[in-house]
C-alpha cells in the first residue's frame, strides 16, 4: 500500500489544471451537473454528505431526493432565495486533472458575474435544456464566452430524459447552435447529450443514448487539450515588483504574461527603450533555462538599466503598442451608471493611471446581440468605447494577448471596480474619433443679460467673430495673426489674439500633441473664444488644428455664424524651409504627431479664405475686405 500511495502521489503531482466556467439559470440543472461531477468523482466526504441530507430536508428544492445544488450555494441569503448570485469556485480532481469550476448564475442581471468567471476560464460548459433548445440565454452566454476569448465550449444538452433521449432533438439543437455561432471566434465547440439528474453521460457513457458515440462529460473534461491556448509567441514581461535586497542584486519579479525567454536574450525595457541582456532567470524552484507563462519568476539583467514596476521587458523585434488612446469592449460592473466626466483609475499590467471614456461607439444588446445607440452604460451593459489615459499604456489587443489586453476601471471616489475592458485591435489615429463637444452640454441660463449684443456691437462698432487660422507648422499662421492684430488695432477694432504656444504654456500645459490631447486643447480654446465673442470682441486664433472633425466641433462651440476659417495653404517644402530645426527633429523621430509627417493634416474644404503665405501684401487686404463686406468690422 505504501508503495502504491507513492506511485499515486508521484503521478498526481504531475496532473495539470483545467479552469471551467459554467453558466446557466436555476432550471437548467447546472448545479445538479456540478454536484454530480463532485459527487461521482468521490470528492465528497461522508460528513459533507450527511450535512447535505439534513439540508435537503430543510430547504431543498428536489423533494425527497438529494438536492445536489445545495452543495454549491454558499451564502445563507442565496440559499433561502434558491438562486446562486455570485461566482462560486469549486474544486475537484480525478486521476487525470485538477479542475477549478467558476460557477456563475445565468440571468441577465448577473452578466457581470459570468464575465468575472469567464475571465480566467479555459473552457465553458453551457447548459441547454433539451426541451427548450437554443434560447436567448444560450446566445447571451455564448456572446460572453466569445467576448472573453474562451477557446473551448461544451454545449451540454441537458434533460435528455425528458425528450425520450431523442437523437432528432439533439441534432436539431446542435445545428441551431452551429448556425448561431458562425462568425464568432470560438475554435472548439462540442455537444454532449446528458441528463444531469439521472447521470446519463455525465461520468459514464449512458446506455440510454446508444446513438451517441462521443465522450461523457467528465471524460471530455479530462482529455481536452488546452496547454497550447496560451500565447507563447510574443514575449511580454510587465514588471510587477523590483527586488533589491542589497547593493549587488537587482531582480525584476513578475509572471511571464506571454512568450518565452532565455538567459542571454537581448531585451529592451519599455517605455525607456534601454537595451540589455537577460543574465539569469530565477524561478520558484531555482535557476531555470527558459521561462514561459504563467511562471512567476525573477529576472536579472547584464546592465544596470532603470526599470520600475509597470515597465515592460520585451524582445527587440516584437513590441507592444504604446499609446494613450485606444478602443475597448467595456463591461459595466458598477451599480452606479457610467459618468463620462469621471477620471477613472485604470489598472493595466501593473500600471495604474487615470483614464476617461471619450466616446461610446455603440452598446450591445446582450439578448438580440444588436448594436444600439448608446446612452451611458448601466450595470451589466457591454459595448465598445474609446478611452484616453493620462500615461501611455503598453498593450496588445486582447484577442492576441489576454494579459496585456485587459484592464479594470476603478471609481476614484467609491473605489468600486466600475468596469472591465478588453482592448480591441487599434484603429489608426486617423480613424479615431474625438469628441470635444459635450453631448449633454447644458444651456447655461445666466438670467436676463443687462447688456444686449446690440448695445455691445454699437459701442465697439464691430460684430463679434472668431477668425480661425489653420495650417501646418511653418505655414506663416502666426505672422499673419500678428499682422491682423496690429492692423485691426490701428483701425480701431477690439481684437484678441490666441495662438498655440501661448495657450499650451498655460491653459493646456498638461496636454501633448496626440490626437486626443489636441482635441482637448482645442476644446478649451473654443470655449475661451466663445466667451470673448460674447463680450463683443473679435478673436484671432492661430492653431494648426489638423483635423476637419475637430474644427467642425470648434465651430459648433463658438457658434457657426461667428466662426470664419482661414487656411494658410503652404506647401510642406516651404514650411520645412521656414522651420528647419523642427522638421529635422521630426524626421529623426524625436517629435511625434507632426502634422504633414507622421500625423495627417486635413485641408479645410470650404474655408472662408484660402491664403498663400507668399502673398504677404495682399493677404491682409483680402481679410479686411472680407470683414468689411460681412459687416464684421467696421459695423457702420
Amino acid at each position: 500500500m505504501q508503495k502504491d500511495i507513492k506511485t499515486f502521489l508521484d503521478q498526481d503531482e504531475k496532473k495539470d489544471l483545467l479552469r471551467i466556467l459554467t453558466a446557466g439559470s436555476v432550471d437548467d440543472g447546472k448545479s445538479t451537473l456540478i454536484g454530480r461531477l463532485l459527487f461521482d468523482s468521490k470528492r465528497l466526504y461522508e460528513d459533507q454528505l450527511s450535512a447535505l441530507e439534513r439540508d435537503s430536508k430543510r430547504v431543498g428544492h428536489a423533494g425527497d431526493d438529494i438536492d445536489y445544488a445545495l452543495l454549491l450555494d454558499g451564502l445563507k441569503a442565496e440559499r433561502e432565495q434558491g438562486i446562486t448570485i455570485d461566482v462560486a469556485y469549486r474544486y475537484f480532481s480525478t486521476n487525470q486533472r485538477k479542475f477549478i469550476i467558476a460557477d456563475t448564475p445565468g440571468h441577465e442581471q448577473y452578466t457581470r458575474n459570468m464575465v468575472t468567471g469567464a475571465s480566467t476560464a479555459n473552457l465553458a460548459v453551457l447548459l441547454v435544456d433539451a426541451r427548450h433548445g437554443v434560447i436567448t440565454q444560450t446566445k447571451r452566454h455564448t456572446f460572453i464566452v466569445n467576448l472573453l476569448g474562451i477557446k473551448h465550449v461544451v454545449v451540454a444538452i441537458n434533460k435528455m430524459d425528458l425528450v425520450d433521449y431523442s437523437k432528432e432533438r439533439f441534432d436539431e439543437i446542435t445545428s441551431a447552435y452551429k448556425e448561431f455561432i458562425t462568425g464568432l471566434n470560438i475554435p472548439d465547440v462540442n455537444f454532449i447529450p446528458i441528463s444531469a439528474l439521472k447521470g446519463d453521460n455525465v461520468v459514464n457513457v449512458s446506455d440510454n443514448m446508444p446513438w451517441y458515440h462521443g465522450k461523457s462529460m467528465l471524460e471530455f473534461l479530462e482529455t481536452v487539450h488546452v496547454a497550447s491556448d496560451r500565447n507563447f509567441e510574443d514575449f511580454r514581461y510587465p514588471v510587477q515588483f523590483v527586488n533589491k535586497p542589497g547593493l549587488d542584486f537587482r531582480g525584476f519579479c513578475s509572471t511571464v504574461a506571454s512568450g518565452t525567454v532565455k538567459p542571454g536574450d537581448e531585451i529592451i525595457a519599455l517605455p525607456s527603450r534601454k537595451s540589455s541582456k537577460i543574465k539569469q532567470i530565477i524561478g520558484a524552484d531555482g535557476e531555470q533555462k527558459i521561462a514561459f507563462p504563467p511562471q512567476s519568476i525573477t529576472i536579472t539583467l547584464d546592465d544596470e538599466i532603470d526599470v520600475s514596476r509597470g515597465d515592460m521587458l520585451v524582445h527587440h523585434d516584437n513590441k507592444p503598442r504604446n499609446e494613450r488612446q485606444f478602443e475597448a469592449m467595456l463591461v459595466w460592473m458598477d451599480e452606479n451608471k457610467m459618468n463620462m466626466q469621471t477620471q477613472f483609475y485604470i489598472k493595466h499590467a501593473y500600471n495604474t493611471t487615470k483614464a476617461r471614456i471619450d466616446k461610446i461607439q455603440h452598446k450591445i444588446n446582450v439578448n438580440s446581440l444588436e448594436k444600439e445607440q448608446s446612452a451611458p452604460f448601466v450595470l451589466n451593459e457591454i459595448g465598445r468605447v474609446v478611452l484616453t489615459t493620462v500615461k501611455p499604456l503598453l498593450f496588445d489587443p486582447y484577442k492576441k494577448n489576454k494579459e496585456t489586453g485587459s484592464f479594470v476601471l476603478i471609481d476614484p471616489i467609491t473605489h468600486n471596480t466600475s468596469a472591465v475592458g478588453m482592448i480591441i485591435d487599434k484603429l489608426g489615429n486617423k480613424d479615431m474619433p474625438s469628441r470635444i463637444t459635450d453631448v449633454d452640454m447644458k444651456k447655461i441660463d445666466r438670467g436676463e443679460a443687462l447688456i444686449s449684443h446690440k448695445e455691445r456691437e454699437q459701442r465697439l462698432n464691430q460684430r463679434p467673430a472668431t477668425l480661425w487660422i489653420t495650417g501646418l507648422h511653418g505655414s506663416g499662421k502666426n505672422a499673419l495673426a500678428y499682422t491682423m492684430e496690429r492692423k485691426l488695432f490701428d483701425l480701431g477694432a477690439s481684437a484678441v489674439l490666441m495662438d498655440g504656444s501661448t495657450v499650451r504654456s498655460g491653459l493646456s500645459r498638461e496636454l501633448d500633441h496626440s490626437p486626443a490631447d489636441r482635441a482637448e486643447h482645442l476644446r478649451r480654446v473654443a470655449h475661451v473664444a466663445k466667451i470673448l465673442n460674447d463680450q463683443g470682441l473679435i478673436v484671432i486664433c492661430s492653431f494648426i488644428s489638423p483635423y476637419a472633425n475637430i474644427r467642425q466641433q470648434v465651430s459648433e462651440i463658438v457658434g457657426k455664424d461667428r466662426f470664419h476659417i482661414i487656411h494658410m495653404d503652404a506647401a510642406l517644402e516651404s514650411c520645412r524651409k521656414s522651420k528647419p530645426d523642427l522638421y529635422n527633429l521630426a524626421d529623426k523621430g524625436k517629435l511625434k504627431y507632426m502634422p504633414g509627417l507622421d500625423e495627417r493634416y486635413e485641408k479645410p474644404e470650404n474655408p472662408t479664405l484660402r491664403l498663400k503665405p507668399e502673398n504677404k501684401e495682399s493677404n491682409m487686404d483680402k481679410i479686411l475686405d472680407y470683414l468689411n463686406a460681412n459687416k464684421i468690422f467696421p459695423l457702420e
Partner: protein
Amino acid sequence: MNNYTLTHLRQLEAESIHIIREVASEFVNPVMLYSIGKDSSVMARLAEKAFAPGKVPFPLMHIDSKWKFREMIKFRDNYAKEKGWNLIVHYNKEGYESGVGPFSHGSKVHTDVMKTQALLGGLNKYKFDAAFGGARRDEEKSRAKERIFSFRDEFHQWDPKNQRPELWNIYNTKIQKGESIRVFPLSNWTELDIWQYIRLENFPIVPLYFAKERPVVEFNNALILLDDDRMPEDLAKKAKMKKVRFRTLGCYPLTGAVESDADTVEKIVEEMMTTTKSERTTRVIDFDQDASMEQKKREGYF
C-alpha cells in the same frame, strides 16, 4: 504542440507568488498572518520564494490565543529564527489577564475574545492595510465565493453582498484610510494540494500532524491532548496514551486528534484519500449552525 506546460502544483504556486508580490507592491504596511498550521507553512514558504534571494518585506504575525499546543509555539519560534522572519506575536492582554480560556468560558467566548478580538486588536495596533490569510476556498461553503483580495471596512467587517469583481489577475487594491484588504493567496488550493506541495518541497511542518503515542482525553466527542496542567484535573486523570495525529491545529482543548498510524506525508495523504471525514470536523468550533463561519467572517474572523 510544445512542452511549455506546468503541473497544477506549479500553476498554483505561480499564482500564489503573483498574489503575494502584488500585495508587497501595492500596500504600505502588509502583514502575513501565521497560524503555524500546514496552510500557513505553505503560505510562508511561498512568500520566501517570492522574494528570494531577498528577505520577505513584511512581518509574520501570530495571534496567540495562549492555548495553542506547546509544540506549535516551539516550532514557530524556531522557524521564524531560522528563516529570518520579523515575527510579531500578539495576544489579547485583557482577555488573558481576566483568565479567559476554553475550559472555563467555553469555546464560543474563548474564540471570540482570544482569537477574533485578539486578531482585530493586532491589526489595529500595527495599522496594517493588508493581511494575508491561509484560508482555502474548498475548506467550507461560505468561502467558495470569497475573493482573493477581500475588502474589509474600517471595522474589519466583510460584506458578502458587496464584494469587488475580480477578473483575470488584476486586483483592485484601492482603499481609504482605515480600510483594509484580507488576501488569500491559497484560495485555489485544496487540502490534497497542500499535502502534495509539502511532499514535493519537503519542508518541515509541526510534528503534531504526524502520528505518535500521545496522552489524550475523550471530551465533547473529541480526543483532546493533555498538553499542559491547565486541563481540569478530573479530565486530565482520564488521559490515556494513544497513537494519534492532528488534521488541523488550533487551541489544544478545541482541536480533536484522530487515531492514526500515519507518520509520513505519504501515509497522511493515503489516510486522507480513504478517510470519510473532512478536515474541519476535528475543529470543535464548527459544530454550530451551518452558517456559523459566514457569521464569524462578517464579524472580522478569517
